[in-house]
């Protein structure tokens, strides 16, 4: 800690210690990372399942909404210094991306539940006649919830992008990257639900989706690295941290190798050969690795955030 303080008193790139694990409050600051991760995969799961409408998609959409309503909310509350005042977070959508994202989160949950009400009502012993999931009203609710889900997937990228003195965050690549990772996280969750026998996409559909998304994720990571390399000194120092410091274990080991390359290889294997009975198992393993990669990429980006020297 003394060394960190000494570095803070130098005119040199200064690490942000507020967001992510290992910050000033060690573990508790990691709650924010979990909130971003859970929010991303929850919104992605909702969008993918309601878009593809495979048999039994409603369960996956409900799980996605639960992730947002319970997981993301709880993680945000755990992170805040004064959780009792959380309602104030919604007050400044005009200028603050945090307000925008959290308002979108409320819209997603409210209109998502409204859309799924005909599916949920019989579960709690109600007979539902007000609207169906296919009529105009039901579809309108889905439309609003989907727009809100898109905002939930990208807003964290904009939150980071708005910090102009942190070169590795001040890039439009982050909202796009977080969007692709969120969609991929949603597909991974659907794959895991399928592995538990609760219905889902067919193996071929998952493999096709995965190969497209993993390629896009790989391309985004490469663009991000190139962007850091071609930015200022602070950006290059962030890149050095991603590639050669302790953060490299997460970025190269978990995000790149385990979270991208291994699932890509498994996808190629699926396309090349019929894996028969072990197909679901390998897809589930691939999904878990992708989720670990998603969490690691967000962690690495937060940890690589360096403020440019003041002079």
């Amino acid at each position, binding site marked *: 800690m003394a060394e960190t303080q000494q570095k*803070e008193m130098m005119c040199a790139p200064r690490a942000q210690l507020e*967001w992510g694990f290992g910050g*000033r409050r060690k573990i508790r600051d990691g709650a924010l990372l979990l909130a971003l991760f859970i929010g991303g995969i929850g919104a992605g799961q909702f969008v993918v399942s309601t878009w593809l409408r495979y048999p039994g998609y409603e369960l996956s959409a409900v799980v996605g909404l639960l992730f947002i309503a319970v997981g993301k909310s709880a993680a945000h509350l755990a992170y805040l210094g*004064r*959780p009792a005042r959380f309602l104030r*977070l919604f007050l400044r959508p005009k*200028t*603050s991306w945090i307000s925008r994202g959290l308002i979108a989160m409320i819209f997603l949950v409210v209109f998502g539940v409204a859309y799924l009400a005909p599916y949920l009502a019989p579960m709690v012993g109600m007979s539902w006649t007000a609207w169906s999931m296919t009529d105009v009203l039901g579809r309108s609710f889905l439309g609003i919830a989907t727009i809100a889900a898109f905002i939930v997937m990208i807003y964290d990228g904009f*939150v980071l992008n708005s910090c102009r003195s942190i070169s590795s965050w001040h890039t439009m690549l982050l909202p796009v990257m977080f969007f692709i990772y969120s969609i991929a996280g949603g597909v991974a969750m659907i794959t895991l639900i399928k592995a538990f026998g609760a219905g889902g996409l067919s193996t071929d559909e998952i493999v096709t989706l995965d190969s497209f998304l993993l390629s896009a994720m790989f391309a985004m990571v490469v663009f991000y690295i190139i962007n850091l390399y071609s930015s200022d000194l602070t950006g290059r120092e962030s890149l050095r941290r991603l590639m050669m410091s302790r953060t490299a274990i997460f970025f190269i080991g978990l995000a790149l190798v385990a979270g991208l390359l291994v699932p890509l290889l498994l996808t190629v294997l699926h396309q090349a050969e019929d894996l028969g009975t072990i197909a679901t198992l390998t897809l589930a393993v691939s999904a878990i690795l992708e989720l670990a990669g998603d969490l690691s990429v967000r962690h690495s980006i937060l940890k690589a955030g360096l403020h440019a020297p003041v*002079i």
Partner: protein
Amino acid sequence: MVIDLKRCTGCFGCVVACKAEHHTPPKVFWAKVLRNESGKYPNSSRQPLPIICMHCKEPECEKVCPTGATKKREDGVVIVDHNKCVGCRYCVVACPYGARYFVQKWSDYFTGKDEPSSKYAEYSRKKWLEESDRGVVTKCTFCVERVEKGLKPACVLCCPAEARTFGDLDDLSSEVSKLIKKRHGFRLKEELGTDPCVYYLPAR
């Protein structure tokens, strides 16, 4: 405010004065002095660089604050309303100058615990909690409570080298405006467009 880098000796008097005035807890420096090292041995030099909140005219911290806790007063001072802050720390991350600090709880300088270990520490905690709160973000206030009484901020008053000058930047006949014009005052990170209100006079 204008800070003359030619006069600043890096004595940390401003840091201590600020601590004595506001009773900030350990690891919280509303006023701090960075070491700016340049060149290579044997032609290297070290220049102290005092840093406080720049009280920007276009503050990044105010824009990103989701609660409206950070606001700019009519006199230009940027303040944090501790009754509105939720401790999300977006402002701490967004501030390019590292002038903001999140304080989870007050702690004693010597024991590091929440309980004061001496009568002075007890007084210090009382004063801190009067001015701030737990779980919120804090920052330099330009000593508004002193300025409103016609006094100078603590760091300006206590600087033994008289490196700091406080005044009205909008008044072209004020001492600060004259110093900036005469000595070619510059600001930190002007390229970000935050329009900081703290000027520096070059060391050479």
